[in-house]
């Protein structure tokens, strides 16, 4: 049987282990963002236009195709990358080209970016080109926004830019 001194020692050592443990499982707090900032998130998931035109198959080319693969014309699969630009108060916050996904670059283009911005009024401009054959931007958004402290604003693309 342990003596009184040993039991006291055990209590002290248990306390030295569990008390700091209980404390550091929730404290001290971490200041992730300042209270006067807001967050702007941009998440685009969009398939660019297909690059190139469909071309009709000649008779010989058509005959070469397997029975289950026969079709009158050959269409390219590769999609245009998205060229995206975000301007805030006239300054470029983001500018990038987002390739289509997939081995053949025939999938959707996806991107996500998050910006921490000071709360208050801002001028937001979004430009996107989703067609490699077109010059300039094919989609635009130009809007004045008012960001509240700790507000999360989301810009998405649903056949046009949408702010939430």
């Amino acid at each position, binding site marked *: 049987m*342990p003596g009184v001194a*040993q039991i006291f*020692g*055990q209590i*002290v*050592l*248990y*306390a030295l*282990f*569990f*008390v700091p*443990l*209980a*404390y*550091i*499982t*929730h*404290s001290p*707090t*971490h*200041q*992730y*963002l*300042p*209270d006067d*900032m*807001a*967050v702007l*998130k941009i*998440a685009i*998931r969009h398939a660019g236009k297909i690059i190139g035109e469909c071309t009709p198959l000649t008779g010989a080319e058509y005959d070469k195709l397997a029975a289950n693969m026969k079709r009158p014309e050959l269409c390219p699969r590769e999609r245009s990358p998205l060229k995206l630009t975000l301007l805030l108060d006239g300054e470029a916050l983001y500018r990038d080209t987002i390739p289509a*996904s997939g081995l053949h670059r025939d*999938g*959707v283009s*996806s*991107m*996500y970016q*998050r910006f921490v911005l000071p709360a208050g009024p801002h001028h937001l401009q979004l430009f996107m080109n989703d067609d490699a054959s077109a010059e300039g931007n094919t989609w635009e958004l130009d809007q004045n926004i008012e960001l509240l402290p*700790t*507000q*999360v604003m*989301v810009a*998405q693309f649903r056949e046009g830019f949408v702010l*939430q």
Partner: protein
Amino acid sequence: MKTLLKKGFNQLDNLFSLAFTPQWNPMYQLGALSFFYFWVVAATGVYLFIFFETSISGAHTSLEQITHGQWYIGGVMRSFHRYASAAMGICMTLHMLREFALDRYSGVRWFSWVSGIPLLWLLFASAIGGYWLVWDIQAQYIAQLTAQWFDWLPIMVDPMAGNFLNESALSDRFFSLLVFLHIGIPLTLLLGMFIHIKRITGARNNPARGLAAGTLGAMLVVSLWQPALSQAPANLDVAVTEVGLDWIFLNPYTLIDSWGPGQTWALLVGLSTALTLLPWLPSRREKPTPVAVVDPDNCNGCGWCLADCPYDAVTMKEHDYKKGHQQSVVNPDLCISCGICAGACPSSSPFRHVDELTTGISIPGFHIKDLLTLTEKKLHALKGSNRIMVYGCDHGSVVDKLTSDSVATISMPCTALVPPAFIDYVLRKELAEGVMISGCCEGDCYYRLGNTWMDQRFSNERMPPLRTRVPREKIRVRWLGEQGTGQLVREVAEFQTELAAGAPLPIEEVS
């Protein structure tokens, strides 16, 4: 760094042994405690799962109900769930650091070391998944930074962060996935824990009962005093500003936040890779001695070496030429060259009527025949009175410091290499008046089980036993470790004084 760590752990070992006794010393049972905490987390997790709702609106609310509505059981269960997982994290980390500091990670031990590294990842993943399920602002913080962290990897086609854009983007199915992960990852962790101890004979995966009871009691007190609570419910439409964090499991998130995901991946993967390669990095440690060798002529197939090998390196097979007999076989990949098998071999008796002492199994670097020659040579050279033979181990108290004209010392890889018949022989032949056995701290043998086996051989609980005719008062067994060298010096002097007095001496406790 290793030396400093070792000194620190030695101090802690002593402190905890004083309060808990060596049998309950938590520093010697960090792995077993980790297993114990896992079971506590699992049991309390099952209870919490019964009342937990896997939906966006139900997750936080149901946990609040568990915590406050049934604080006396649900709240305590939740606190146990949190504090036991945190304690497991600390015990596993200390276990790893201690094995590193005490040089127990290379050679044959590489498997346990390497298989332990993924366990840390799995534990962190399990704990983070648990915090995520609470769906409070801490969970929101975790969700956003985890998504940011994983999205950095080129394998992600659709950004994971897209699932946490705002409240409307979140789906209940996500919580079903989280619950699945929070059950699946800990089960993988458990599987990994069993693999981790697979190569170890009689691995200790249960702590001493008193220690287990004490730790449960302490957790109950802390759970009532500081119950685990949720923070404000998550709201993806509002940015997280100030958040309370679990600094044990969530500290990598502050790195993702400040360094960025790429550097955090580099640090954590780099650190894990370095730890994994550690057993093969050059070091100043001595090269291992050759592995144990079986002599079929002297092996009678008793299997005592098999029973005593701490690393499962010995198996039995049909004897090479004695029909109907068995003989031992040593797996060189698992043999750690401790010599415990030689101490267990019944052929290792100096009383055998043979011209030259041979044995059924021994390590070439420290053959039983050499041990006998050395013992006799050193004892014959003693001139003083109250002669003592001290057998010590290379990892415990430094016995060389005890050498004098009346004290002979021999250090070997593990003291369990000394067959009990040697002690009988030394005293019966009156080569010395007393024998002292020393080694690593009790319950903390460098070769895991050496001092446990010795104690059991001396108390006739294990073969080969120390014969009952051997006067126990002429034997001292002291498991004091390297840090107990000073104490051992004093105790040898006291032993000599007692032998000189010739007074009836107390029977030595061997445990």
